[in-house]
């Protein structure tokens, strides 16, 4: 049994050009060293029934032993405000904020603090392990606490006021429920003795949603909160709940108020990692581990669901104790990619204990792009990095009740899955929920990603390398281009190529990416879509952080969590998210077919349809018997049509010139239609009774000699290698590729 995780790492940047440096950030708790080898990936899937693991080893200066160290991961988001004189003012102190706790009772959680855990000095507002608000003051070696008498309720807004009356030597904490009826009123207040005129610790950062473990402007933190905080205010005055409430209700507190220490407005600069202070002290803070912004505040009233229209209703940030978006590891290896290198899927292989019963073989992935405007081939294959990130470290099969029923059989965990079950600090995927049950809407590449590498889970990355191996086997020259660049450079990233292939599951697209493909196709480009469930979700990329994507799932589509009301616009861009089908660009409009169903019981062959005999597509079916089912073989369920499948639908945009060549429309009871395919609920919608549950193969010409060929099935890629690549799925794909690389226009279609 191969140990795939005793050493883990990530490459930065995830995508490099020839001539640029990539750094490898590694960590191992168990190994002192490993043998590193840089490889270009042909096939990442170890399944012995397929091509098996296949690599090209170029030989590099970093090949050889690498010393390893343990670099911990520190999950949990917060905002850090470095110390300033205004934070050390002597005398009374009070704070007010709106709080929406999402995991009360799940351990102690700090809400707002200027507290050093190592010396137990400063002040701190927190939730206790039994979900009660507590205000703590530590000074001169002594600690005072005021604790609310009633626990808070999960996912109910409260207003919290707390503070110290330094003259009276008393301190208090109070909560007021915003919906105080029908059993939801937890209002209470508590006052106890406190210190008179304590001296606050110096050089201590103010932390929102956690507390500092140590001094300094960038401390390690603990006590991370699960929940939303809205409009926190800090005042140099004895606590007065009514006055504090008025101050928090006021969206524009007067900055010149001399008692106002800070008034943070999280509705400012939502796409960024900065939190703004409206006070005259300008105590701006920096977010760590990317908590969810554009969260509805306590004042959100449903008048809009777009934060850009009324940002003042989006003054909350949803912090999670398990947010993880930057491992922050120190690099262990650096490598400058030679100018002469081919673009490709690359990986650093790390081996140890090769002679033992438990040999270590772990991979760290990265991609070498073909530089913009400098193609080395007529064909480009797209590395679906947006999709790889969306699924990064998916724990769906570990956490979601529905997984075994959906997958129609026992869940088979890889060694990586077993590791992830125990090591949630890696950060999960956008298919998962945080520990507080809320959906994971961001995914980034500055952390180890277990399922985007050789030997990893086959969905997406592994399946896509079957297409790469097919190209290699055919001796076909190709470049690798990546989603990140298609977003950044738009159609320019595609334009140099006669033909572009998107892989087995290109599911996540920003608006810029969709428009790039649209422009490419309209400008004479040829697009082969060899997958299923493509062009499905609308995402955003972070405006400045590389390799960071966002999805808001909303309330439609095949979603593993439902977006909260009002929180379904992208914080990175202000755009809507959700399905492209709901955003005016159904996949059928771009590639002729669009997602309609899942089928995990088994995969199926396609039956040819009459348009396959149309002489205008004779080049596609050359050498193929149209009276024999297509693809009754394959590594995923024994057929070429399976897992997730797409269908032709003119009302969603399949174009008039489309030739619907083949269909797999007998998917039996395991064919389950996606939610947006159903108008009302009724029985009989599964594949055994419903011909709209199917995979379709389609071709259509586009403007200026362009064309699109789509196979509508994730399983397609894993049928290519059957019988040593000598089969009809491979032949059809090859016929189309050959024709798509031929610049001759497609004749016989009227303008």
């Amino acid at each position, binding site marked *: 049994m191969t140990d795939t995780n005793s050493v883990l790492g990530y490459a930065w940047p995830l995508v490099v050009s020839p001539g640029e440096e990539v750094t490898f950030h590694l960590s191992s708790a168990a190994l002192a060293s490993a043998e590193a080898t840089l490889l270009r990936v042909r096939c990442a899937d170890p399944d*012995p029934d397929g091509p098996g693991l296949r690599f090209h080893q170029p030989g590099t200066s970093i090949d050889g032993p690498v010393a390893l160290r343990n670099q911990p991961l520190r999950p949990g988001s917060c905002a850090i405000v470095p110390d300033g004189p205004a934070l050390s003012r002597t005398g009374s102190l009070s704070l007010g904020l709106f709080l929406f706790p999402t995991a009360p009772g799940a351990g102690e959680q700090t809400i707002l603090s200027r507290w050093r855990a190592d010396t137990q000095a400063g002040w701190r507002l927190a939730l206790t392990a039994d979900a009660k608000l507590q205000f703590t003051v530590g000074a001169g070696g002594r600690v005072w606490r005021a604790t609310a008498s009633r626990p808070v309720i999960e996912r109910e807004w409260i207003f919290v006021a707390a503070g110290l009356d330094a003259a009276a030597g008393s301190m208090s904490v109070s909560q007021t429920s915003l919906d105080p009826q029908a059993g939801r009123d937890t209002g209470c207040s508590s006052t106890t003795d406190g210190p008179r005129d304590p001296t606050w610790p110096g050089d201590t950062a103010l932390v929102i949603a956690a507390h500092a473990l140590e001094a300094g402007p960038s401390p390690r933190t603990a006590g991370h909160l699960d929940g939303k905080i809205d409009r926190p205010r800090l005042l140099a005055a004895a606590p007065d709940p009514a006055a504090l409430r008025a101050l928090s209700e006021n969206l524009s507190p007067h900055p010149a108020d001399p008692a106002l220490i800070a008034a943070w407005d999280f509705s400012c600069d939502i796409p960024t990692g900065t939190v703004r202070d409206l006070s005259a002290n300008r105590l701006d803070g920096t977010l760590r581990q990317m908590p969810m912004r554009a969260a509805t505040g306590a004042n959100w009233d449903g008048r809009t669901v777009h934060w850009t229209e009324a940002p003042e209703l989006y003054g909350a940030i949803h912090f999670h104790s398990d947010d993880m978006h930057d491992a922050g590891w120190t690099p262990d290896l650096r490598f400058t990619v030679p100018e002469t290198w081919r673009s490709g899927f690359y990986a650093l292989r790390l081996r140890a204990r090769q002679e033992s019963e438990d040999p270590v073989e772990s991979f760290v992935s990265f991609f070498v792009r073909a530089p913009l405007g400098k193609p080395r081939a007529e064909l480009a294959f797209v590395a679906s990095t947006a999709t790889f990130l969306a699924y990064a470290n998916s724990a769906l099969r570990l956490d979601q009740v529905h997984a075994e029923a959906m997958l129609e059989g026992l869940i088979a965990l890889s060694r990586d899955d077993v590791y992830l079950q125990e090591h949630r600090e890696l950060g999960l995927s956008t298919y998962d929920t945080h520990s507080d049950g809320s959906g994971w809407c961001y995914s980034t590449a500055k952390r180890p990603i277990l399922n985007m590498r050789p030997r990893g889970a086959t969905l997406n990355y592994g399946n896509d390398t079957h297409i790469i191996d097919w190209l290699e086997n055919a001796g076909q020259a190709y470049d690798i281009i990546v989603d990140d660049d298609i977003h950044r450079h738009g159609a320019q990233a595609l334009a140099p190529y006669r033909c572009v292939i998107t892989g087995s599951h290109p599911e996540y697209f920003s608006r810029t990416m969709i428009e790039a493909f649209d422009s490419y196709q309209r400008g004479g480009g040829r697009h082969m879509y060899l997958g299923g469930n493509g062009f499905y979700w609308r995402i955003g990329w972070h405006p400045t952080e590389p390799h960071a994507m966002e999805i808001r799932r909303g309330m439609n589509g095949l979603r593993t969590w439902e977006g909260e009301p009002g929180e379904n616009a992208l914080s990175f861009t202000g755009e809507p998210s959700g399905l492209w089908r709901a955003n005016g660009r159904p996949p059928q409009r771009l590639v002729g077919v669009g997602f309609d169903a899942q089928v995990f019981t088994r995969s199926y062959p396609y039956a040819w349809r009459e348009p396959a005999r149309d002489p205008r597509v004779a080049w596609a079916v050359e050498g193929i018997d149209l009276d024999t089912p297509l693809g009754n073989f394959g590594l995923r369920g024994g057929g070429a049509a399976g897992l997730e499948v797409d269908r032709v639908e003119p009302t969603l945009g399949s174009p008039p010139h489309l030739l619907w060549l083949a269909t797999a429309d007998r998917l039996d009871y395991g064919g389950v239609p996606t939610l947006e395919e159903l108008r009302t609920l009724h029985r009989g919608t599964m594949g055994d009774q419903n011909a709209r549950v199917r995979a379709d193969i389609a071709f259509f010409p586009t403007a200026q000699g362009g064309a699109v060929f789509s196979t509508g099935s994730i399983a397609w890629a894993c049928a290519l290698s059957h019988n040593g690549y000598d089969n009809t799925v491979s032949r059809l794909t090859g016929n189309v590729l050959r024709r798509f690389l031929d610049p001759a226009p497609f004749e016989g279609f009227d303008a």
Partner: protein
Amino acid sequence: MLVNDPEAAHWPVDPARLDLVEEFRRKPRGPHGDELQKLLHRMRWSGVGNRHVLIVIEPNRRWMLGRLPGRRGAPVETFPNRIFTSLAEAEWAVFVMRWEALTGQRIQDAERGPA
């Protein structure tokens, strides 16, 4: 919030329906008739008795029985003595345990696995 309820599957399992046991034994990987589909859904939705899973020992060749702990961060329980060399054999082994958990009755000749 939209959440899934592991206790929601409530199709009543009839311990007398040994015909369904035999149908599963013949074809653990399907296709299955309507009533066996319902029985399997009942078993799979809740993962009766904490969810049993497989741990891949050799890709597509050997699997070990495991059980999810039902709590994030806790280790997967492993059963190193229960190794399977086919998915059908593994499905049958877990079916046997779930049948007993749901009906309180053992399958008499459980050791006779799928053909």
